[in-house]
């Protein structure tokens, strides 16, 4: 019998390998990210000063929407082919299964999207000096997106029109992350003292959701596969 941690790591690795070999998931998310960012100047007009001022906010919102698009993949395929039931019968508690799958989602979606952001920032005349801070806040904030998103993904497994419902359920939960992500970027650009407090709260939101998300998602999954 392997240790629980080894099982956890194996599950994360399995989900990552599936995400890479299935393909499509990351490409779709990145493409969506690009399209949303590209739509902004078309809607707001090509005023470079305006775009530069709102660039970090637009990038954060586009990232939320792009990550939202890939959330159903956390549980859906495994639920449909029965793998989730096998995992539920295994020795690893469902909470840890949910945590492993959310972590894999963060690694396969959150990190690439965050790293892409500065490149898309060029389209919005983002001040390149602030790009490292932007990426840092996104890397610190995206775990919350994956872990909170897993709640929505688990709740909508059996729902009709699951995709639209998922957005309605999950986007309100993302508000704190969005607010502190943006306020951290702003604090850094003003070189003010509130950078570290905001950043610490952003990290705290991610850590808190890493506890809350798996518990709620596991409860929701268990109700649906028993």
């Amino acid at each position, binding site marked *: 019998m392997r240790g629980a941690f080894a099982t956890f790591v194996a599950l994360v690795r399995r989900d990552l390998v599936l995400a890479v070999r299935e393909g499509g998931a990351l490409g779709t998310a990145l493409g969506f990210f690009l399209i949303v960012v590209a739509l902004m100047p078309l809607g707001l007009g090509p005023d470079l000063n305006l775009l530069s001022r709102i660039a970090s906010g637009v990038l954060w919102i586009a990232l939320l929407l792009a990550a939202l698009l890939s959330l159903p993949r956390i549980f859906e395929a495994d639920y449909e082919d029965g793998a989730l039931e096998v995992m539920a019968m295994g020795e690893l508690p469902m909470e840890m299964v949910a945590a492993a799958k959310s972590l894999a989602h963060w690694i396969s979606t959150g990190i690439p999207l965050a790293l892409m952001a500065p490149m898309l920032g060029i389209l919005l005349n983002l001040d390149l000096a602030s790009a490292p801070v932007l990426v840092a806040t996104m890397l610190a904030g995206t775990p919350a997106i994956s872990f909170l998103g897993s*709640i929505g993904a688990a*709740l*909508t497994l*059996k*729902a*009709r*029109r*699951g995709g639209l*419902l998922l957005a*309605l*359920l999950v*986007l*309100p*939960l993302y*508000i*704190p992350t969005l*607010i*502190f992500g943006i*306020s951290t970027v702003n604090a850094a650009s003003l070189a003010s003292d509130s950078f570290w407090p905001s950043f610490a709260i952003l990290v705290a*939101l991610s850590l808190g959701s890493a506890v*809350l998300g798996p518990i*709620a998602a596991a*409860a*929701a999954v268990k*109700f*649906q596969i028993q």
Partner: protein
Amino acid sequence: MPTMQTSQSITQKLANPTRFMDLSGRLLPWITVASAGIIAYAMYLVFFVAPPDYQQGQTVKIMYIHVPSAWLGMMAYALIAISSFGLLVFRHPLADVSAKAAAPIGAAFTLLALLTGSLWGKPMWGTYWVWDARLTSVLLLFFLYLGLMALRSSIEDEALAAKLTAVLALVGVILLPIIKFSVDWWNTLHQPSTGLTTTVHASIRVPLLISAFGFSLLFFAMHMKAMRNEILRRRVKALRMAEVERAQSNSPPGNPSVSGDIRARAAQAGE
């Protein structure tokens, strides 16, 4: 004897809701009349007795509906959260009925608070809407209500929908304070709570408290009525399922899996 056993278990299941139906049937007319009377009295005080504000003039009257609506919008969510906890932890038979009945009423009061607030904001702040901390967090409360109702309506299996909605309601409880405090970091236009005991003059405070009491009774009357409706709806559904099952067992044996499925669903509806 199998028939004895099933009839007993059905009575056991209905025992608590039946007692509730008796009790609420007797209480409901009184609460309804009381709430109508108290709201009417409060409105009389508001429009004929309470003075206009020295700065706001007559628009201050909006507050007598706005503040109770906002309170009840939050209280209804607390009620949903407690009911959800009761459902998931104690499996109380009425908990889900209560949570389901409270959601649309709470959403309506939250929307009323938003609408009256924006009607007040136009003459006072010069705009219907600002992205202020308080307004944003109440709007998010409204979104949470919408999410609860949408999730419930999109899952066919009612027992499952009840449990999943309860999970979402409890997640919302943990996140509401975080949302509240996170938006507090933004600039705030909405005045803070005034601590009704001291700073507000009695000529305004008393009508407000009476109005809040009347609207609270209105909430409880509507909630009770909605719970009664829901219980009756479930009973009708369970009876229909039982009838279908009886018809099937009388007819020559058809598809056994279908009748098993219906029996399972009837059992769920009865719980």
